[in-house]
């Protein structure tokens, strides 16, 4: 990402793939990107990309007749971000290093907030589950959600959100990302068959805050406090049974304790609580239904409180017990 102007090329830098379709003047027609917690390609396919390309080419032909270039701004590149001006730059800037730089800078200057942490909202946060092939077609609309209350139904094709045209999943995220934090009324337009519908999404105060399940895949979660200070490999179903656990009881074997680097205090804290490599963790404050390790780490960071003890259910040498771990600030 070295040399890439972040004012022009804006997308969720936590992603592993983003395709921007644009005019040479910097106008972005379509943002083909995005994923959910299930898989990196949950919302991408060659067939849907090909269709979106064909649609966007028509947009380009229309736009080229009377272009309206965006205002020119000084280029903002990752190597010029304040964090990397004062710290060692990596040889190669990965996309997620951009979010890292924003977060490290924000936490260091104590200016970081939820509004900075929870960016690029998943449409699922407003109750709209989009289809991979259809991109902007509703695969499902959650009952009693803002999308449902606005009148959206399964099969509807979303054509604009907040007056921004939407051709791909990434466009919907771009539009939602631009909505300010807090309660909001966002216009939405969709096609149901050949008929156009328009309504307003009534978004509640905390709509931009995802659930731990929705946020689990985001690399942005790693620097969030409080941190457990340890992690490991999930047990298979057979291993859970062998440990005397139910098959659906998520469990992992502690494979590392963070005793190195800037977060080593969290690992030392975990050790003081009794966490040891090799022990099996099978519940935290009674929660046993984590989807995977990412979910565990997101949940811990998003829902536990520094200074408030967390009860960790463990098995060590065949003995079950509960450890009390007080997360650090």
């Amino acid at each position, binding site marked *: 990402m070295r040399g890439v102007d972040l004012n022009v090329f804006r997308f969720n830098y936590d992603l592993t793939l983003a*395709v921007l379709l644009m005019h040479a003047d910097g106008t972005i027609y379509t943002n083909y990107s995005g994923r959910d917690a299930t898989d990196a390609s949950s919302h991408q396919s060659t067939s849907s990309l090909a269709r979106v390309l064909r649609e966007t080419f028509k947009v*380009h032909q229309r736009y080229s007749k009377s272009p309206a270039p965006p205002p020119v701004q000084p280029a903002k590149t990752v190597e010029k971000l304040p964090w990397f001006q004062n710290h060692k730059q990596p040889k*190669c800037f990965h996309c997620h290093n951009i979010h890292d730089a924003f977060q490290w800078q924000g936490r260091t200057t104590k200016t970081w907030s939820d509004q900075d942490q929870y960016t690029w909202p998943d449409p699922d946060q407003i109750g709209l589950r989009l289809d991979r092939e259809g991109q902007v077609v509703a695969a499902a609309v959650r009952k009693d959600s803002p999308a449902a209350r606005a009148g959206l139904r399964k099969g509807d094709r979303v054509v604009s959100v907040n007056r921004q045209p939407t051709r791909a999943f990434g466009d919907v995220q771009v539009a939602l990302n631009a909505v300010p934090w807090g309660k909001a009324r966002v216009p939405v337009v969709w096609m149901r068959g050949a008929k156009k519908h328009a309504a307003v999404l009534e978004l509640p105060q905390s709509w931009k805050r995802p659930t731990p399940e929705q946020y689990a895949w985001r690399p942005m979660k790693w620097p969030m406090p409080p941190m457990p200070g340890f992690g490991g490999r999930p047990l298979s179903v057979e291993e859970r049974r062998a440990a005397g656990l139910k098959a659906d009881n998520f469990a992992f074997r502690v494979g590392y304790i963070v005793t190195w680097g800037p977060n080593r205090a969290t690992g030392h804290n975990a050790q003081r609580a009794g966490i040891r490599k090799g022990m099996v963790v099978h519940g935290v404050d009674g929660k046993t239904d984590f989807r995977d390790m990412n979910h565990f780490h997101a949940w811990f960071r998003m829902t536990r409180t520094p200074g408030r003890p967390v009860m960790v259910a463990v098995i060590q040498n065949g003995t079950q017990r509960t450890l009390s771990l007080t997360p650090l600030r």
Partner: protein
Amino acid sequence: MGWLCGLLLLVGIESAAFAEDSPNWRTDLAAARKEAARTGKPLLVVFRCVP
């Protein structure tokens, strides 16, 4: 580990870019934007980050 950024100047759905030949990827973003401005073609910019 590393990142790959591929840029493709889209030449239209009738072109060989969607047929049998491989697309002619560019890797110089500034040069690709200049070429797109000169030719009137849109840009497809791919950011591929392998974590």
